[in-house]
Protein backbone atom coordinates (compact mmCIF):
# COMPACT_ATOMS: atom_id res chain seq x y z
CA UNK A 1 0.00 0.00 0.00
CA UNK A 2 1.13 3.52 -0.74
CA UNK A 3 2.00 5.62 2.27
CA UNK A 4 1.95 9.34 2.77
CA UNK A 5 -1.32 10.04 1.00
CA UNK A 6 -2.63 11.91 3.99
CA UNK A 7 -0.79 14.57 5.97
CA UNK A 8 -1.90 17.07 8.57
CA UNK A 9 -1.00 20.73 8.72
CA UNK A 10 -1.89 23.07 11.54
CA UNK A 11 -2.85 26.59 10.59
CA UNK A 12 -4.20 29.17 13.01
CA UNK A 13 -7.79 28.29 12.11
CA UNK A 14 -7.29 24.62 12.89
CA UNK A 15 -5.93 21.53 11.22
CA UNK A 16 -6.01 21.05 7.47
CA UNK A 17 -5.82 17.60 6.04
CA UNK A 18 -3.79 17.43 2.85
CA UNK A 19 -4.54 14.58 0.49
CA UNK A 20 -2.17 13.52 -2.26
CA UNK A 21 -3.49 11.35 -5.13
CA UNK A 22 -4.34 7.70 -4.72
CA UNK A 23 -7.50 5.64 -4.50
CA UNK A 24 -10.26 6.83 -2.24
CA UNK A 25 -10.27 3.58 -0.27
CA UNK A 26 -6.57 3.83 0.56
CA UNK A 27 -6.95 7.51 1.45
CA UNK A 28 -9.75 6.64 3.84
CA UNK A 29 -7.82 3.76 5.33
CA UNK A 30 -4.76 5.88 5.98
CA UNK A 31 -6.79 8.76 7.37
CA UNK A 32 -8.63 6.52 9.81
CA UNK A 33 -5.42 4.86 10.93
CA UNK A 34 -3.72 8.20 11.53
CA UNK A 35 -6.73 9.55 13.36
CA UNK A 36 -6.85 6.54 15.64
CA UNK A 37 -3.14 6.81 16.42
CA UNK A 38 -3.74 10.07 18.27
CA UNK A 39 -7.45 10.38 18.59
CA UNK A 40 -7.29 12.41 21.79
CA UNK A 41 -5.21 15.04 20.10
CA UNK A 42 -7.64 15.34 17.22
CA UNK A 43 -10.60 15.48 19.55
CA UNK A 44 -9.18 18.63 21.11
CA UNK A 45 -8.53 20.28 17.76
CA UNK A 46 -10.60 21.86 15.05
CA UNK A 47 -10.58 20.19 11.66
CA UNK A 48 -10.65 23.14 9.28
CA UNK A 49 -10.95 21.23 6.03
CA UNK A 50 -9.49 18.90 3.45
CA UNK A 51 -7.15 20.08 0.72
CA UNK A 52 -6.10 18.28 -2.41
CA UNK A 53 -7.09 18.36 -6.05
CA UNK A 54 -7.16 14.65 -6.60
CA UNK A 55 -10.27 13.92 -4.59
CA UNK A 56 -13.73 15.03 -5.55
CA UNK A 57 -16.07 17.24 -3.63
CA UNK A 58 -18.33 14.32 -2.71
CA UNK A 59 -15.40 12.33 -1.39
CA UNK A 60 -14.19 15.28 0.69
CA UNK A 61 -17.64 15.62 2.11
CA UNK A 62 -17.76 11.94 2.92
CA UNK A 63 -14.41 12.08 4.71
CA UNK A 64 -15.51 15.11 6.71
CA UNK A 65 -18.74 13.37 7.66
CA UNK A 66 -16.84 10.29 8.78
CA UNK A 67 -14.64 12.45 11.01
CA UNK A 68 -17.62 14.36 12.29
CA UNK A 69 -19.96 11.49 13.07
CA UNK A 70 -17.82 8.38 13.39
CA UNK A 71 -15.01 9.94 15.40
CA UNK A 72 -16.97 12.83 16.85
CA UNK A 73 -14.38 15.42 15.83
CA UNK A 74 -14.93 19.13 15.65
CA UNK A 75 -15.21 19.76 11.92
CA UNK A 76 -15.59 23.41 11.04
CA UNK A 77 -15.52 23.26 7.26
CA UNK A 78 -18.99 23.31 5.84
CA UNK A 79 -19.50 22.99 2.13
CA UNK A 80 -21.03 26.39 1.67
CA UNK A 81 -19.58 26.77 -1.79
CA UNK A 82 -21.24 23.57 -2.91
CA UNK A 83 -24.47 24.56 -4.61
CA UNK A 84 -26.11 21.28 -3.65
CA UNK A 85 -25.61 21.87 0.06
CA UNK A 86 -26.31 25.54 0.32
CA UNK A 87 -28.54 26.02 3.33
CA UNK A 88 -30.36 29.00 1.88
CA UNK A 89 -31.48 27.27 -1.26
CA UNK A 90 -33.80 29.06 -3.67
CA UNK A 91 -37.36 28.59 -2.48
CA UNK A 92 -39.24 30.79 -4.91
CA UNK A 93 -40.64 27.99 -7.02
CA UNK A 94 -44.22 28.99 -6.27
CA UNK A 95 -43.63 32.70 -6.37
CA UNK A 96 -40.27 34.18 -7.09
CA UNK A 97 -37.77 35.78 -9.42
CA UNK A 98 -38.16 34.64 -13.00
CA UNK A 99 -36.17 35.23 -16.14
CA UNK A 100 -37.87 35.20 -19.52
CA UNK A 101 -35.94 34.32 -22.62
CA UNK A 102 -37.45 34.92 -25.99
CA UNK A 103 -35.08 33.01 -28.17
CA UNK A 104 -33.97 29.62 -29.37
CA UNK A 105 -31.23 28.25 -27.12
CA UNK A 106 -28.71 26.56 -29.37
CA UNK A 107 -26.01 23.95 -28.92
CA UNK A 108 -23.22 25.18 -26.66
CA UNK A 109 -25.28 27.97 -25.13
CA UNK A 110 -25.87 28.02 -21.39
CA UNK A 111 -28.69 29.89 -19.69
CA UNK A 112 -28.29 30.20 -15.94
CA UNK A 113 -30.39 32.10 -13.45
CA UNK A 114 -30.80 32.29 -9.69
CA UNK A 115 -34.55 31.86 -10.00
CA UNK A 116 -37.07 30.41 -12.42
CA UNK A 117 -36.50 30.38 -16.17
CA UNK A 118 -39.14 30.60 -18.87
CA UNK A 119 -37.97 30.05 -22.44
CA UNK A 120 -40.28 31.18 -25.20
CA UNK A 121 -38.66 29.11 -27.89
CA UNK A 122 -36.80 25.81 -28.26
CA UNK A 123 -33.88 24.41 -26.33
CA UNK A 124 -31.79 22.49 -28.85
CA UNK A 125 -29.59 19.44 -28.18
CA UNK A 126 -26.26 20.50 -26.70
CA UNK A 127 -27.78 23.52 -24.94
CA UNK A 128 -28.03 23.76 -21.16
CA UNK A 129 -30.64 25.59 -19.11
CA UNK A 130 -29.85 25.74 -15.41
CA UNK A 131 -32.11 27.41 -12.86
CA UNK A 132 -32.33 27.42 -9.10
CA UNK A 133 -36.10 27.27 -9.52
CA UNK A 134 -38.45 25.86 -12.15
CA UNK A 135 -37.83 25.68 -15.86
CA UNK A 136 -40.69 26.15 -18.29
CA UNK A 137 -40.10 25.80 -22.01
CA UNK A 138 -42.76 27.06 -24.38
CA UNK A 139 -41.35 24.98 -27.17
CA UNK A 140 -39.25 21.84 -27.57
CA UNK A 141 -36.84 20.83 -24.85
CA UNK A 142 -34.19 18.66 -26.46
CA UNK A 143 -31.08 19.82 -24.61
CA UNK A 144 -30.24 19.47 -20.94
CA UNK A 145 -32.35 21.15 -18.26
CA UNK A 146 -31.29 21.42 -14.62
CA UNK A 147 -34.01 22.75 -12.34
CA UNK A 148 -33.52 23.41 -8.64
CA UNK A 149 -29.78 23.38 -9.26
CA UNK A 150 -28.98 24.46 -5.71
CA UNK A 151 -30.68 21.41 -4.32
CA UNK A 152 -34.39 22.05 -4.53
CA UNK A 153 -35.91 18.74 -5.58
CA UNK A 154 -39.38 20.25 -5.54
CA UNK A 155 -38.55 22.27 -8.64
CA UNK A 156 -40.10 21.13 -11.91
CA UNK A 157 -39.39 21.19 -15.60
CA UNK A 158 -42.29 21.69 -18.01
CA UNK A 159 -42.24 21.85 -21.78
CA UNK A 160 -44.60 21.77 -24.71
CA UNK A 161 -42.47 19.00 -26.12
CA UNK A 162 -40.42 17.34 -23.42
CA UNK A 163 -37.69 15.28 -25.03
CA UNK A 164 -34.54 16.28 -23.17
CA UNK A 165 -31.14 14.63 -23.62
CA UNK A 166 -30.90 14.70 -19.86
CA UNK A 167 -33.03 16.06 -17.03
CA UNK A 168 -31.63 17.08 -13.69
CA UNK A 169 -33.72 18.20 -10.76
CA UNK A 170 -31.83 19.07 -7.61
CA UNK A 171 -29.07 16.47 -7.44
CA UNK A 172 -31.01 13.82 -9.32
CA UNK A 173 -30.00 13.05 -12.88
CA UNK A 174 -32.07 11.11 -15.36
CA UNK A 175 -31.33 10.50 -18.98
CA UNK A 176 -33.35 9.95 -22.04
CA UNK A 177 -33.81 6.27 -22.98
CA UNK A 178 -31.64 4.96 -25.79
CA UNK A 179 -34.60 3.72 -27.78
CA UNK A 180 -36.84 6.22 -29.44
CA UNK A 181 -38.97 7.94 -26.88
CA UNK A 182 -42.71 7.71 -27.26
CA UNK A 183 -44.23 11.05 -26.50
CA UNK A 184 -47.86 11.89 -26.12
CA UNK A 185 -47.46 14.97 -28.27
CA UNK A 186 -48.91 16.89 -25.36
CA UNK A 187 -47.12 19.22 -22.97
CA UNK A 188 -45.53 17.37 -20.06
CA UNK A 189 -44.10 18.09 -16.63
CA UNK A 190 -41.10 16.43 -14.98
CA UNK A 191 -40.96 16.21 -11.19
CA UNK A 192 -39.11 14.23 -8.57
CA UNK A 193 -40.96 11.36 -6.89
CA UNK A 194 -39.07 9.01 -4.56
CA UNK A 195 -35.69 10.22 -5.76
CA UNK A 196 -36.55 9.68 -9.39
CA UNK A 197 -37.51 12.05 -12.13
CA UNK A 198 -41.04 11.24 -13.28
CA UNK A 199 -42.73 12.69 -16.35
CA UNK A 200 -46.44 13.40 -16.14
CA UNK A 201 -48.99 14.87 -18.49
CA UNK A 202 -49.38 18.59 -18.29
CA UNK A 203 -53.02 18.51 -17.27
CA UNK A 204 -54.03 16.47 -14.22
CA UNK A 205 -57.28 15.34 -15.88
CA UNK A 206 -58.73 15.96 -19.23
Amino acid at each position, binding site marked *: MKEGLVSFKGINGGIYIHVKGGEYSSILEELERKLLESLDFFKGAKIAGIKGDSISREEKKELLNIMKYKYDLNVTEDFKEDPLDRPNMFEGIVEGMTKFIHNTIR*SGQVIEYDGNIVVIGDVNPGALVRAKGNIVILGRLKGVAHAGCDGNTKALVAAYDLRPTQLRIGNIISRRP*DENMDTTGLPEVAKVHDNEVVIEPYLPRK
Partner: protein
Amino acid sequence: MVMGRAIVITSGKGGVGKTTATANIGTGLAMSGYKVVVVDTDIGLRNLDVVMGLENRIVYDIVDVVEGNCRLKQGLIKDKRFDGLYLLPAAQTKDKTAITPEQMIELVAKLKEEFDFIIIDSPAGIEQGFKNSIAGADEAYIVTTPEVSAVRDADRVIGLLEAHGIKNPKLIINRIRYDMVKRGDMMNVEDIIDILAIDLLGIIPDDEAIVISTNKGEPVIAEEKPLSAKAFRNICSRILGNEVELLDLDVNEGKFSKLLKILFSK
Protein backbone atom coordinates in the same frame (compact mmCIF):
# COMPACT_ATOMS: atom_id res chain seq x y z
CA MET B 1 3.84 -2.80 -17.49
CA VAL B 2 2.71 -2.46 -21.07
CA MET B 3 1.46 1.02 -21.78
CA GLY B 4 -1.44 1.76 -24.09
CA ARG B 5 -1.09 3.14 -27.61
CA ALA B 6 -2.27 6.72 -28.03
CA ILE B 7 -3.44 7.33 -31.58
CA VAL B 8 -4.72 10.65 -32.90
CA ILE B 9 -7.12 10.68 -35.84
CA THR B 10 -6.77 13.91 -37.76
CA SER B 11 -7.16 15.41 -41.22
CA GLY B 12 -6.86 19.17 -41.38
CA LYS B 13 -10.00 19.45 -43.45
CA GLY B 14 -13.40 19.15 -41.83
CA GLY B 15 -16.09 16.69 -42.73
CA VAL B 16 -13.87 13.94 -44.09
CA GLY B 17 -14.83 11.40 -41.44
CA LYS B 18 -12.49 11.79 -38.47
CA THR B 19 -15.23 11.30 -35.92
CA THR B 20 -16.78 8.39 -37.81
CA ALA B 21 -13.37 6.75 -38.10
CA THR B 22 -12.66 7.31 -34.39
CA ALA B 23 -15.98 5.80 -33.32
CA ASN B 24 -15.60 2.78 -35.59
CA ILE B 25 -11.96 2.05 -34.87
CA GLY B 26 -12.56 2.46 -31.14
CA THR B 27 -15.56 0.17 -31.26
CA GLY B 28 -13.75 -2.35 -33.45
CA LEU B 29 -10.77 -2.63 -31.13
CA ALA B 30 -13.08 -3.00 -28.15
CA MET B 31 -14.92 -5.77 -30.02
CA SER B 32 -11.59 -7.57 -30.32
CA GLY B 33 -11.36 -7.56 -26.54
CA TYR B 34 -9.12 -4.57 -25.92
CA LYS B 35 -9.73 -1.85 -23.37
CA VAL B 36 -10.29 1.30 -25.39
CA VAL B 37 -11.07 4.93 -24.64
CA VAL B 38 -12.11 7.34 -27.37
CA VAL B 39 -11.35 10.96 -26.54
CA ASP B 40 -13.16 13.88 -28.14
CA THR B 41 -10.92 16.96 -28.30
CA ASP B 42 -13.29 19.01 -30.42
CA ILE B 43 -14.27 21.31 -27.56
CA GLY B 44 -17.24 23.50 -28.43
CA LEU B 45 -18.28 21.34 -31.39
CA ARG B 46 -18.43 17.92 -29.87
CA ASN B 47 -19.87 15.11 -31.99
CA LEU B 48 -18.26 11.87 -30.97
CA ASP B 49 -20.81 11.41 -28.16
CA VAL B 50 -23.65 11.75 -30.66
CA VAL B 51 -22.10 9.33 -33.15
CA MET B 52 -21.62 6.80 -30.34
CA GLY B 53 -25.10 7.40 -28.98
CA LEU B 54 -23.85 8.39 -25.54
CA GLU B 55 -24.88 12.04 -25.46
CA ASN B 56 -27.55 11.45 -22.82
CA ARG B 57 -24.99 10.10 -20.35
CA ILE B 58 -22.67 13.09 -20.23
CA VAL B 59 -22.34 14.69 -16.83
CA TYR B 60 -18.65 15.59 -16.76
CA ASP B 61 -16.35 16.23 -19.71
CA ILE B 62 -12.69 16.51 -20.64
CA VAL B 63 -12.45 20.08 -19.31
CA ASP B 64 -13.89 19.01 -15.93
CA VAL B 65 -11.34 16.20 -15.79
CA VAL B 66 -8.42 18.44 -16.72
CA GLU B 67 -9.48 21.19 -14.30
CA GLY B 68 -10.01 18.67 -11.51
CA ASN B 69 -13.75 19.28 -11.08
CA CYS B 70 -14.13 15.51 -11.14
CA ARG B 71 -11.99 12.41 -11.13
CA LEU B 72 -10.89 10.89 -14.40
CA LYS B 73 -13.12 7.88 -13.75
CA GLN B 74 -16.17 10.08 -13.30
CA GLY B 75 -15.54 11.69 -16.68
CA LEU B 76 -15.33 8.39 -18.56
CA ILE B 77 -18.61 7.16 -20.03
CA LYS B 78 -19.03 3.43 -20.48
CA ASP B 79 -20.32 2.40 -23.88
CA LYS B 80 -23.86 1.05 -23.98
CA ARG B 81 -23.04 -1.98 -26.09
CA PHE B 82 -19.43 -3.01 -25.66
CA ASP B 83 -17.51 -3.77 -22.49
CA GLY B 84 -14.11 -2.22 -22.33
CA LEU B 85 -15.12 0.77 -24.46
CA TYR B 86 -15.22 4.20 -22.87
CA LEU B 87 -15.75 7.76 -24.08
CA LEU B 88 -14.23 10.92 -22.69
CA PRO B 89 -16.49 13.61 -24.16
CA ALA B 90 -15.50 17.15 -25.07
CA ALA B 91 -17.11 20.14 -23.38
CA GLN B 92 -19.71 21.87 -25.46
CA THR B 93 -19.97 25.20 -23.68
CA LYS B 94 -16.26 26.08 -23.70
CA ASP B 95 -13.72 26.56 -26.45
CA LYS B 96 -10.41 25.07 -27.51
CA THR B 97 -8.40 27.29 -25.18
CA ALA B 98 -10.01 25.60 -22.17
CA ILE B 99 -7.20 23.03 -22.20
CA THR B 100 -3.51 23.19 -23.05
CA PRO B 101 -1.21 20.72 -24.82
CA GLU B 102 0.61 20.16 -21.51
CA GLN B 103 -2.64 19.14 -19.83
CA MET B 104 -3.38 16.79 -22.72
CA ILE B 105 0.02 15.13 -22.37
CA GLU B 106 -0.69 14.53 -18.69
CA LEU B 107 -4.20 13.26 -19.38
CA VAL B 108 -3.13 10.85 -22.10
CA ALA B 109 -0.31 9.56 -19.90
CA LYS B 110 -2.87 8.72 -17.21
CA LEU B 111 -5.17 7.04 -19.74
CA LYS B 112 -2.30 4.95 -21.06
CA GLU B 113 -1.97 3.27 -17.68
CA GLU B 114 -5.59 2.10 -17.82
CA PHE B 115 -6.28 1.42 -21.48
CA ASP B 116 -4.76 -0.56 -24.33
CA PHE B 117 -5.80 2.03 -26.88
CA ILE B 118 -6.45 5.75 -26.58
CA ILE B 119 -8.07 6.96 -29.78
CA ILE B 120 -8.11 10.75 -29.95
CA ASP B 121 -10.57 12.48 -32.26
CA SER B 122 -9.04 15.71 -33.51
CA PRO B 123 -10.98 18.82 -34.51
CA ALA B 124 -10.68 20.26 -38.02
CA GLY B 125 -8.04 22.93 -38.52
CA ILE B 126 -4.45 23.27 -37.38
CA GLU B 127 -4.89 25.67 -34.47
CA GLN B 128 -5.00 25.10 -30.73
CA GLY B 129 -7.54 22.27 -30.86
CA PHE B 130 -5.36 20.35 -33.30
CA LYS B 131 -2.28 21.03 -31.20
CA ASN B 132 -4.09 19.73 -28.11
CA SER B 133 -5.19 16.60 -29.92
CA ILE B 134 -1.73 15.60 -31.12
CA ALA B 135 0.10 16.61 -27.93
CA GLY B 136 -0.16 13.27 -26.14
CA ALA B 137 -0.29 10.99 -29.18
CA ASP B 138 2.35 8.44 -30.17
CA GLU B 139 0.85 7.62 -33.56
CA ALA B 140 -1.34 9.45 -36.05
CA TYR B 141 -3.86 8.29 -38.62
CA ILE B 142 -4.74 10.78 -41.33
CA VAL B 143 -8.21 10.64 -42.79
CA THR B 144 -8.73 12.03 -46.27
CA THR B 145 -11.28 11.80 -49.04
CA PRO B 146 -10.42 11.51 -52.73
CA GLU B 147 -10.63 15.27 -53.31
CA VAL B 148 -7.77 17.60 -54.07
CA SER B 149 -8.66 19.93 -51.22
CA ALA B 150 -8.75 17.16 -48.60
CA VAL B 151 -5.51 15.68 -49.89
CA ARG B 152 -3.85 19.08 -49.82
CA ASP B 153 -4.86 19.58 -46.19
CA ALA B 154 -3.74 16.06 -45.32
CA ASP B 155 -0.33 16.87 -46.77
CA ARG B 156 -0.09 20.00 -44.64
CA VAL B 157 -1.05 18.06 -41.51
CA ILE B 158 1.49 15.31 -42.21
CA GLY B 159 4.16 18.01 -42.30
CA LEU B 160 2.97 19.47 -39.00
CA LEU B 161 2.91 16.05 -37.37
CA GLU B 162 6.46 15.34 -38.48
CA ALA B 163 7.57 18.71 -37.12
CA HIS B 164 5.95 17.67 -33.86
CA GLY B 165 7.85 14.41 -33.75
CA ILE B 166 5.04 12.05 -34.77
CA LYS B 167 6.68 10.01 -37.48
CA ASN B 168 5.13 7.64 -40.01
CA PRO B 169 1.48 8.64 -39.86
CA LYS B 170 -0.83 6.19 -41.62
CA LEU B 171 -3.49 7.01 -44.17
CA ILE B 172 -7.19 6.21 -44.23
CA ILE B 173 -8.93 7.10 -47.48
CA ASN B 174 -12.61 7.57 -46.85
CA ARG B 175 -15.66 7.79 -49.07
CA ILE B 176 -14.28 6.18 -52.18
CA ARG B 177 -16.77 5.60 -54.96
CA TYR B 178 -15.58 2.75 -57.06
CA ASP B 179 -17.80 3.58 -60.02
CA MET B 180 -16.37 7.11 -60.22
CA VAL B 181 -12.80 5.92 -59.86
CA LYS B 182 -13.41 3.42 -62.66
CA ARG B 183 -14.72 6.18 -64.91
CA GLY B 184 -11.69 8.28 -64.07
CA ASP B 185 -13.80 10.93 -62.37
CA MET B 186 -12.32 10.43 -58.93
CA MET B 187 -8.76 10.30 -57.65
CA ASN B 188 -7.78 6.72 -57.08
CA VAL B 189 -5.88 5.26 -54.16
CA GLU B 190 -2.58 5.19 -56.04
CA ASP B 191 -2.86 8.89 -56.94
CA ILE B 192 -3.37 9.86 -53.32
CA ILE B 193 -0.58 7.70 -51.97
CA ASP B 194 1.68 9.04 -54.68
CA ILE B 195 1.10 12.59 -53.43
CA LEU B 196 1.19 11.93 -49.71
CA ALA B 197 3.87 9.25 -49.68
CA ILE B 198 2.76 7.58 -46.46
CA ASP B 199 1.61 4.05 -45.62
CA LEU B 200 -2.00 3.18 -46.32
CA LEU B 201 -3.98 1.82 -43.39
CA GLY B 202 -7.20 1.27 -45.24
CA ILE B 203 -9.85 2.47 -47.64
CA ILE B 204 -13.49 3.01 -46.79
CA PRO B 205 -16.16 3.02 -49.49
CA ASP B 206 -18.83 5.69 -49.63
CA ASP B 207 -21.69 3.90 -47.96
CA GLU B 208 -25.25 4.75 -47.01
CA ALA B 209 -24.96 2.43 -44.04
CA ILE B 210 -22.57 4.91 -42.42
CA VAL B 211 -25.12 7.70 -42.60
CA ILE B 212 -27.79 5.46 -41.12
CA SER B 213 -25.60 4.14 -38.31
CA THR B 214 -24.28 7.62 -37.48
CA ASN B 215 -27.81 8.93 -37.11
CA LYS B 216 -28.70 5.96 -34.93
CA GLY B 217 -25.68 6.48 -32.70
CA GLU B 218 -24.35 2.98 -33.30
CA PRO B 219 -21.04 2.71 -35.17
CA VAL B 220 -21.42 0.71 -38.39
CA ILE B 221 -18.53 -1.64 -37.62
CA ALA B 222 -20.74 -3.78 -35.37
CA GLU B 223 -22.97 -4.63 -38.32
CA GLU B 224 -22.34 -7.74 -40.34
CA LYS B 225 -23.10 -6.79 -43.92
CA PRO B 226 -22.11 -3.24 -44.93
CA LEU B 227 -18.94 -2.98 -46.98
CA SER B 228 -17.84 0.00 -44.91
CA ALA B 229 -18.09 -2.11 -41.76
CA LYS B 230 -15.84 -4.74 -43.35
CA ALA B 231 -13.43 -1.98 -44.32
CA PHE B 232 -13.27 -0.74 -40.73
CA ARG B 233 -12.82 -4.27 -39.40
CA ASN B 234 -9.88 -4.70 -41.76
CA ILE B 235 -8.39 -1.45 -40.51
CA CYS B 236 -8.68 -2.63 -36.91
CA SER B 237 -7.08 -5.90 -37.83
CA ARG B 238 -4.16 -4.05 -39.44
CA ILE B 239 -3.81 -1.85 -36.34
CA LEU B 240 -3.41 -5.06 -34.36
CA GLY B 241 -0.56 -6.06 -36.65
CA ASN B 242 -2.28 -8.46 -39.01
CA GLU B 243 -1.80 -8.43 -42.74
CA VAL B 244 -5.14 -7.98 -44.44
CA GLU B 245 -5.68 -7.44 -48.13
CA LEU B 246 -7.40 -4.29 -49.32
CA LEU B 247 -11.12 -4.63 -49.76
CA ASP B 248 -12.53 -5.22 -53.23
CA LEU B 249 -14.86 -2.27 -53.59
CA ASP B 250 -16.37 -3.40 -56.85
CA VAL B 251 -19.85 -3.72 -55.43
CA ASN B 252 -21.74 -3.49 -58.66
CA GLU B 253 -20.01 -6.54 -59.87
CA GLY B 254 -21.60 -9.22 -57.72
CA LYS B 255 -20.58 -12.85 -57.76
CA PHE B 256 -23.16 -13.64 -60.40
CA SER B 257 -21.96 -11.05 -62.89
CA LYS B 258 -18.38 -12.04 -62.24
CA LEU B 259 -19.31 -15.60 -63.02
CA LEU B 260 -21.01 -14.48 -66.24
CA LYS B 261 -17.92 -12.56 -67.21
CA ILE B 262 -15.74 -15.59 -66.67
CA LEU B 263 -18.07 -17.74 -68.68
CA PHE B 264 -18.38 -15.36 -71.58
CA SER B 265 -14.82 -14.22 -71.70
CA LYS B 266 -13.79 -17.57 -73.04
